[in-house]
């Protein structure tokens, strides 16, 4: 509806005008209709009376076939200008007398019709019996124009128009004054609400106009504004304090991070220097024990030679340990050079190299197609070296070692796994597997330093990925690692550095 978009003033006025207009129109139309039917009834009544008088007066004329007298009787109708024509018919239905006399014969019905009344748009006609005693001696025909009725209706129409116009004007004037009672408080509220919405100014208040609902509404609105204002300032305050707290916290975090970084750096430098410095005495022990074995061989008995061998193998073992530790600590300092990595080629290449070390072992290597990813190729290579050598090592007790390598990408993450049918592990220790120097088996059982998986974990973490393992005692183990692709990686590298 068009009105829906109009401002409330206009809507109110339109509603009042339409309602009043409809009511007064209906009232006028009812009066109009009532007048129309009343006039019809009174026309019938007066014409019927007139007809009865004429009929009664013309009985003798009809009885004695005196049409001149009948015409004279009818000529009395001159006093009724709305009667345009009248005629008398004898008992045989023949035209007997007519009024006015100068009207041509064909202006009258040739024969009387059934007794009664008939209204057309312009004329009212009637046929009435002329009765003498018990006998019908003829028929009277009257034709009256409806000028009188139309005149009356015209007058009524004019009155209706004037009344409608006057009431419309009055309604307009009154509604213009009275609509303020409703529209003003609403407009005031609207103005206040707009001030609040546009400027965010919760301190404005709507003016209180009148009593009853609008006053309640305005009061409720103002109360709401007060509450919002209070809430808003409280919120602002708490926001401010929160902001201060946040800034303080951030500052503190920054400080801690800086301290932590320093400590970390110190620790790394320390572990590096320790590992590095440990090599010098170790090299001395190794060198001198070799000299002892080579130069003074004959001076030692068998027992002495065996002890010397033990010393040598242990120093070599310790050298490896230090190498691994150095490699591990270097990892945290090493820059990661991300580039596309052909995982398939890498895994296959690593296995080829390792195979020579496990020549006496029967290994079935199943390599499923691996999706390529991005990362530091040298480091990823190290991951495969460690995982594949572990798989071969721990499946050595099996007559037929089986190593499965597979992987797939999903939602931007690529997950790869290396699965063996080796001795497996208890899931209770799954978390411990990746710790430095954490071993589930003795060196006698399976050689190793306990750094390999820690290195794998560090490499994968530095790439922003995850490492986890699944396994069961005597039923093999599976090592999973995921590598995020592309941008995520770079982001992770940045933070890792």
């Amino acid at each position, binding site marked *: 509806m068009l009105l829906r978009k109009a401002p409330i003033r206009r809507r109110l006025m339109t509603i009042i005008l339409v309602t009043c207009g409809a009511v007064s129109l209906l009232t006028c139309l009812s009066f109009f209709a009532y007048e129309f039917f009343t006039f019809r009834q009174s026309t019938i009544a007066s014409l019927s009376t007139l007809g009865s008088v004429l009929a*009664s*007066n013309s*009985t*003798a*004329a009809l*009885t*004695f076939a*005196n049409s001149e*007298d009948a015409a004279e009787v009818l000529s009395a109708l001159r006093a009724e200008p709305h009667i345009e024509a009248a005629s008398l018919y004898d008992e045989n239905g023949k035209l007997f007398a007519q009024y006015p006399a100068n009207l041509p014969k064909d202006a009258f019905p040739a024969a009387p019709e059934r007794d009664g009344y008939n209204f057309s748009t312009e004329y009212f006609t009637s046929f009435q019996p002329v009765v*003498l*005693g018990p006998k019908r001696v003829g028929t009277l025909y009257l034709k009256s124009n409806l000028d009188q009725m139309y005149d009356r209706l015209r007058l009524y129409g004019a009155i209706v128009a004037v009344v409608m116009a006057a009431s419309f004007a009055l309604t307009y004037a009154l509604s213009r004054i009275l609509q303020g009672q409703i529209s003003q408080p609403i407009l005031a509220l609207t103005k206040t609400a707009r001030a609040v919405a546009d400027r965010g100014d919760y301190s404005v208040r709507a003016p209180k106009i009148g009593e009853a609902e609008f006053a309640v509404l305005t009061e409720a609105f103002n109360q709401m504004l007060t509450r919002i204002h209070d809430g808003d300032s409280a919120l602002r305050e708490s926001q401010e304090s929160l902001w201060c707290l946040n800034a303080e916290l951030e500052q503190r975090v920054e400080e801690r991070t800086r301290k932590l970084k320093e400590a970390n750096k110190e620790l790394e430098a320390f572990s590096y220097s320790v590992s590095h410095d440990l090599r010098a005495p170790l090299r001395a022990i190794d060198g001198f024990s070799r000299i002892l074995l080579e130069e003074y061989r004959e001076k030692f008995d068998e027992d002495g030679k065996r002890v010397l061998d033990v010393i040598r193998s242990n120093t070599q073992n310790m050298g490896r340990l230090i190498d691994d530790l150095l490699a591990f600590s270097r990892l945290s300092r090493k820059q990661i050079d991300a580039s596309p990595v052909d995982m398939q080629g890498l895994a296959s290449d690593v296995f080829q190299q390792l195979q020579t070390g496990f020549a006496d072992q029967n290994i079935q290597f199943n390599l499923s197609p691996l999706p390529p990813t991005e990362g530091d190729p040298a480091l990823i290579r190290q991951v495969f070296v460690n995982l594949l050598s572990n798989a071969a090592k721990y499946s050595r007790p099996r007559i037929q070692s089986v190593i499965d390598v597979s992987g797939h990408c999903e939602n931007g993450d690529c997950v790869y796994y290396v699965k063996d049918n080796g001795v497996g592990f208890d899931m209770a220790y799954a978390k411990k597997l990746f710790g430095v120097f954490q071993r589930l088996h003795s060196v006698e059982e399976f050689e190793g330093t306990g750094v390999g998986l820690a290195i794998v974990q560090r490499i994968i973490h530095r790439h922003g990925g995850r490492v986890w393992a699944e396994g069961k005692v005597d039923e093999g183990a599976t090592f999973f690692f995921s590598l995020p692709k592309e941008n995520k990686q770079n982001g992770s590298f940045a933070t890792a550095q």
Partner: protein
Amino acid sequence: MEFPKALAHCLGSRRVRTLTAICSAVVASCVLIASVGAAPANEYQVKAAFLFNFAKFVEWPANAFSDTTTPFVIGVLGHDPFGPYLDDIVRGERINNRSLTVQRYRHAGEIKQCQVLFISRSESDHIDQIISSLKYRKILVVTDADGGNGGVIIRFVNEGNRIRFKIDVEAAKAANLVISSKLLRLG
């Protein structure tokens, strides 16, 4: 109708049958026109009707009748010029709930109870005598003869080929009769 039908049948021709049908129709309509035209030709047929109709526009005092069942009497004095017409008109009719009878008198002495009396032209010689003998009797005296002024209440007059009448209001008053104004307008 039997004859042309039979003739048509004898001739057996369709055209002849049509022709005879037209002929018979023409003959029938001629007969019809003749009978309609003949109706107003008789002066006394009209007068008989008038005589009966006068009774409807005139009021007789209650003592003009011996009781409520006494018939309304239309009398004809002298030679009856109406033939069967008067009897035909009156037959089966009633006036003021009284039956009607027609009585014929040879002389005034025979008149007993009578409401409307038509004096024939045959009595024009001694009409004054008759009038005086009927004085103060509540009788509507009608005649188409001359004379009898002051006693004759309604007198038929021929105007061209139309029959009119004159009413003597004084005579009516003298006879104690009330004549309707509607009738008076015609007289």
